[in-house]
Each structure stands twice: as structure tokens, then as C-alpha cells.
């Protein structure tokens, strides 16, 4: 299969692994930002092809994982409203709110539908004029353009029954927050290739300069990831810190300007709470004033009853430390015992991009812990 096979080629993987072994002289800690990269690493065992001096830690790049529990509770409340059809990406359905998840609401009669694109929700709104459609808009810069397009389309079609629960987050402010933490041990980043496809990578240059960290925009296949690691290690060993692009087949320096224009037309940056991490300024998106008629929170504010639920995740869940790369999933005492995909304590055990789910799904070592 073109564009996949060449980047999974075992010979190329072996050669890169060998080169990384040859150039590595010191110990380095590198974070891959995106959950998709984490899954590739664990699924293919790529970290085991690296020299022991290199430690990969897993970043917060799983939009489902960082969505705060308050928003999940809100989505559940919205899905309970009789005339509402709540549309969501599939990943979100099993993430536990305080008392329930969206799958449970669906089983109890709520109309919760999995969509593959925000534009699907526009079609549902058009086909169901007597219902109110709410889309749970979760994701990084990658899904924001399609979300913005859906809102613009709903506006053009003059749909009065289309609403958005906005939970979009932005990557660069989170990277900066991690680097600013007193506990930080990240020495280099593999930046998220898909996010950079949309946004470009010039905004990483001040971060790289300020914190003196190499940042390499990296893809998701085994060859991509090992090449990204090699480029970071090259810089670290040579004492350099720059932004480089491994994923040039998809990413240009300035990104996709059309997509950025659409995002900027509909959304503006806002502060956002990241689950397990806390409030990060300018790390989320909110609807601009001209689009607040699509805001689900505004439309249904009197129907959302969150006062009777506590909104803190179970205290045993270490997802905050895991999402900041301070801890590996397998170091968590609840991992694989009290926290499993069937009974998750936190979102990283649920989402297909969550680090805990990746370790649980792919790592033979967990057997010994059972």
C-alpha cells in the first residue's frame, strides 16, 4: 500500500535503529507529543529498538484524554435532553464522566450518534428539523478546520437546530506549559505531524529557542518515528536546538493556510482546562462572537444540571502525571488491576490514542503484574 509500506519497511527500521545506536553517547529523554505516535511506538515496539540511554515519554496529545470531566458530564447532560441528538467521534463515547459515559446514556435511550466528520452532523441537522443537533467538538488543530467548516455550512444553510459543544485544544501552549513545569525532564520533542500539517511549525521556533529544546515535526509510521528520534538525538549530541521537519511529505513550514483561515474565522483562542494538567492560557478554542448562536452551552444552559455531581476524577488515577510524561502507564499502581479498558479510572485507558490503553493493549509485561 503506497505511502504506508515504505514507511513500515523492516530494513529501513533496522538501519535507523542501528544509526541511532551509533550516534547516541549520552542519556536523553524525548517526548512524543501525539497519542497516535505513542500507539505506533508501543504497537510496533519501537522503543525497544532504541539504545537504553534514550527514554521516550508519552505526551498529552490525545484530545479525548485531556477533555476535562466537566465537559464530559455536560455532554452526558445534553444527550439526556429528549429532542437532542448528540453527535460525537467514536472515541469519546466510553470516556467516563463522573457517574456515566455517553454509551450508558445511549443505552438508556439518549440519541447519541457516532460521526466520522463534523459535516455528517450538519446533514443530520438538515434531515431532522424537529430535533436539536449537538456536536461534541473534540480534537486538536487537526479536527478544528472540519469543525469550523461544519459551522460555516450550518450558517449558510440557515440551520437553527445545529449546536456545538466546543472542546478544542491547541498543542503549542501545552508544550510550553510542560517545559515550564519545575518537574520537567523533557530534552527534545517529536512534534505532532498532523497538527503541523494544518498549522505549520514556525510557531515552535520561539519555544525551541526559549527552552533550548530540539523540536522535530514527526510522522506516525515506524520509519517516521525512528527518523524523528534520530534527528532529535543528532541535535542533542551536537548541542543544538532547532525546529526540524521529518514529515516533509505532509508538512510545510507555514501549514495549510486555507484551513487556518477557516479556523480563525470561526474560533478564537481561549484558556482551557486540560484534564489532569489544569488550566493553560490560550490553549483552547472558543466560538467568536459572530457564531455564538451555535454555542450549545448558551442554547441549553438552563438544561444542564451539573451541581449535584463532583467533577474531580478518581483520586487514584494518575492520568495527569502520565499526560505530562512524569510517569509511564505501567508505573501506575492501578494499571492493569483496578484500571483496565473495561473499568477505566481515567480517559488515557479508554481512548485509542491514550498511553495507558496502548500499554494495556500491546505490552506483554503487564501479564506479570496481573
Amino acid at each position, binding site marked *: *500500500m503506497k505511502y*504506508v509500506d515504505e514507511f*513500515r519497511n*523492516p530494513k529501513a*527500521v*533496522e538501519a535507523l535503529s542501528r544509526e541511532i545506536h551509533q550516534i547516541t553517547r549520552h542519556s536523553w529523554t524525548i517526548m512524543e507529543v501525539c497519542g*497516535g505516535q505513542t500507539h505506533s511506538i*508501543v*504497537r*510496533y*515496539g*519501537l522503543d*525497544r*529498538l532504541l539504545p537504553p540511554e534514550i527514554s521516550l515519554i508519552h505526551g498529552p496529545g490525545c*484530545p*479525548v484524554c485531556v477533555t476535562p470531566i466537566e465537559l464530559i458530564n455536560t455532554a452526558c447532560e445534553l444527550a439526556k435532553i429528549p429532542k437532542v441528538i448528540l453527535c460525537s*467521534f*467514536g*472515541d*469519546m*463515547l*466510553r470516556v467516563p464522566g463522573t457517574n456515566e459515559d455517553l*454509551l450508558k446514556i445511549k443505552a438508556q435511550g439518549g440519541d447519541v450518534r*457516532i460521526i*466520522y466528520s463534523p459535516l455528517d452532523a450538519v446533514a443530520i441537522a438538515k434531515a431532522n428539523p424537529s430535533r436539536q443537533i449537538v456536536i461534541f467538538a*473534540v*480534537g*486538536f488543530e*487537526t*479536527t478544528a478546520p472540519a469543525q469550523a467548516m461544519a459551522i460555516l455550512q450550518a450558517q449558510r444553510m440557515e440551520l437553527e437546530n445545529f449546536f456545538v459543544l466546543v472542546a478544542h485544544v491547541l498543542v503549542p501552549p501545552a508544550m510550553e506549559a510542560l517545559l515550564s513545569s519545575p518537574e520537567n525532564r523533557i530534552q527534545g520533542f517529536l512534534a505532532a505531524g*498532523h497538527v503541523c500539517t494544518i498549522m505549520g511549525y514556525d510557531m515552535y521556533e520561539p519555544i525551541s529557542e526559549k527552552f533550548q529544546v530540539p523540536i522535530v515535526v514527526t510522522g506516525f509510521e*515506524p520509519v517516521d518515528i525512528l527518523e524523528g528520534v534520530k534527528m532529535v538525538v543528532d541535535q542533542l549530541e551536537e548541542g543544538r536546538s532547532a525546529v526540524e521537519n521529518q514529515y516533509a511529505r505532509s508538512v510545510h513550514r507555514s501549514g495549510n493556510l486555507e484551513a487556518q483561515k477557516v479556523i480563525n474565522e470561526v474560533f478564537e483562542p481561549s484558556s482551557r482546562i486540560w484534564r489532569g494538567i489544569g488550566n493553560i492560557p490560550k490553549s483552547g478554542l472558543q466560538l467568536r462572537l459572530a457564531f455564538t448562536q451555535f454555542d450549545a452551552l448558551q442554547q441549553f444552559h438552563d438544561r444542564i444540571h451539573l451541581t449535584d455531581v463532583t467533577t474531580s476524577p478518581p483520586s487514584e488515577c494518575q492520568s495527569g502525571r502520565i499526560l505530562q510524561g512524569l510517569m509511564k502507564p505501567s508505573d501506575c499502581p492501578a494499571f492493569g488491576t483496578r484500571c*483496565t*479498558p*473495561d473499568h477505566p479510572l481515567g480517559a488515557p485507558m479508554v*481512548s*485509542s*490514542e491514550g498511553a495507558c490503553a496502548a500499554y*494495556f*493493549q*500491546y*505490552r*506483554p509485561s*503487564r*501479564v*506479570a503484574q*496481573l
Partner: protein
Amino acid sequence: MSQNSSLEPQCPLPLASDDTIRLAHGGGGRLMQQLIHEIFLEAFSNSYLNALQDSAVLPTQDGRLAMTTDSYVVQPLFFPGGDIGSLAIHGTINDLAMMGASPHYLSAGFILEEGLPIITLKQIVSSMAKTAQDCGVHIVCGDTKVVDRGKGDQIFINTTGLGVIPQSVDIGPHRLTPGDRIIVSGDLGAHGMAVLSQREGLEFSGNLRSDSAPLPDVIADLLKHNIAIHCLRDLTRGGLASALNELATAGPSTMTIKESCIPISDPVRGACEILGLDPLYVANEGRFVMFLPSEDVDRALSLLHQHAVSKNATDIGEIRLPESTPHQSLVTLETRYGTHRILDLLSGEQLPRIC
């Protein structure tokens, strides 16, 4: 057709193809009789069914009886490579074949939703009849119920199958032995991806067609040639990964399969890549996994390759003795890079990922 003339329909008007199913079609009166005669008996006619007794009366058989039942609720009802009718035959006779049984008889239970177009029912029943005939099985008894509109999803079908296992045949998880090789009968995931893409209106390039197909003939051929089959499992819901896990828990052994050997077609790989699904967990309806001693592998593969349904059969791995750790009844996948990962049971459904 029937010797019992009192059951002949009194209603002179034939069922019009543009008509729809009404509650009265399940009410026991004339409309129901008309449905039974004009649609079911017309299509499935055989001497056991045509007797129209409370039970079908079947001749005794040499060997042991194998019996299985399955319900079919697929949407869409028609998909590339099959429909709910052909699936209701293949699915059930394939379960019989996995025990080494040759399928003989089927029952067919229909739950119809009020409003189902008669023409749709006719198409499905006709597909069932043709499939049953092609597979050499008789539908010998049946039942029809109609539920209110909104209480069903057009049509649900249950089929129960009865087959005969020759005395000498002993196939099952109790025979899994360390050293056994693991063969899959063909490329994986086509049924699940064909149905999913049709249902969700996803447009993929390439030819995504269900693999729905009967398996009894190829199994009978292997048995005829004295292939020492230890265990068989058809790879329906949950796919290869789930089937291997279920079997691995049956005995104190681990299974190791090689990623590079597992056949998956390019259209299925492409669709799975886009949706973030793992083809090893995607449903099949005409694929099976077989465990057998290594000395029989070459002969088995050359027989399998002679049948269209298993022309891409491949040896993908082996059963090993459990290593040091207890609880090691697991399935391990060796990646193309020589690293290993577990292939676990799924939690819930495979949900498409977000980005």
C-alpha cells in the same frame, strides 16, 4: 404442495410486490398463511417442510449430531458480496463445519418489522433458498413473527443448523497441542469493512466485498484426505484476534503469530488505516483458523489452495508451551521488526478514532 387442504389460503389475491408487511402477517390468519405459502414454501420447498406439521420429522443419521444456532441482524440488509439471507445460511452451516460436521438441516425464524416491503422479504428469502440449495442443506421448519413498526430493524433472522459428525472425527480446543501450526484460510476483515463502509456511506476506493462463503466443502475435503485437524474456529465477530484469545484460554499454551504472514487485502488495509481499526479484530464470514500438527501443514495448504474460499490460506504461527510466567495463556504477535506485542481481547466495540 400440502396434503392438508384446510391450510390452503382462501385469499385469492396474490401478495403484491409493492405491498408491505403488516401486523396481520404474523397474526395466524389468512394473511399469515398467504405469506407462508407464497413466500416461504414457494422458496424453500422440500418434503420435510412441505408436510407443514408442528415439527419437521427427520430421518436418523449415522454419526454424532452437531447443532448450532445464530441470529442475524445485519444492517444494511444487502451489502457487496452478500445479504442477510445468504449470511443466515453461511453463518450457521460454517459453525457446524467447524466441528467437522456436514450440515443437513436448518430451521429459519423470521422477526419482521411492520412496514418491511414484501419485495425486500422476497429478495432475502430467495437468496436464502438459493444459498441453501448451493450448500446442499434443507430448511425444514420455520417461524414468522411481526413486530410493531419501530420495534425491530426491518428483519431479523435466526437459523438453527443440524449436522452430522463422522465417528472418526474429533475436532475441538481440547486437542490443541504445543507445536501445532496455525493456518488462516484467507485474507481477513473483508466482511466487516464491506458492511461498515456500506452502512456508514463511506466511500473507499478499491473493491471491498464481503467474504461471506460456505466452508463445509473445504473442511470435508481436508477430512477426506486425512488431515489431522486438531481445532477449527470461524473468524466471525471479533476477528482472528478474538478467536485466538478464546482458544488460548482453553488450554495451558500460548500462541505466537507473525504479522508479516497474515493475509490482508489492500482495500481492507486502506479502509482500516483511515478509520483506525485493526483488521485482526474485524469480522469475517467465510474465513477460519485451523490448528494442526506441523507435518500436515504442506498437504493441508495444497488442499486449501484448490478451493476458491481458501485459495490464500497461509501458515501464520504456532502454539508454544507456556513460558515461565503463570497466566500466560496469551496470544503474541511478532511484528515485522522482530518486536513482540500482545494481541488481547477487545474491550467493547472497536470505535473509529478521532484524528
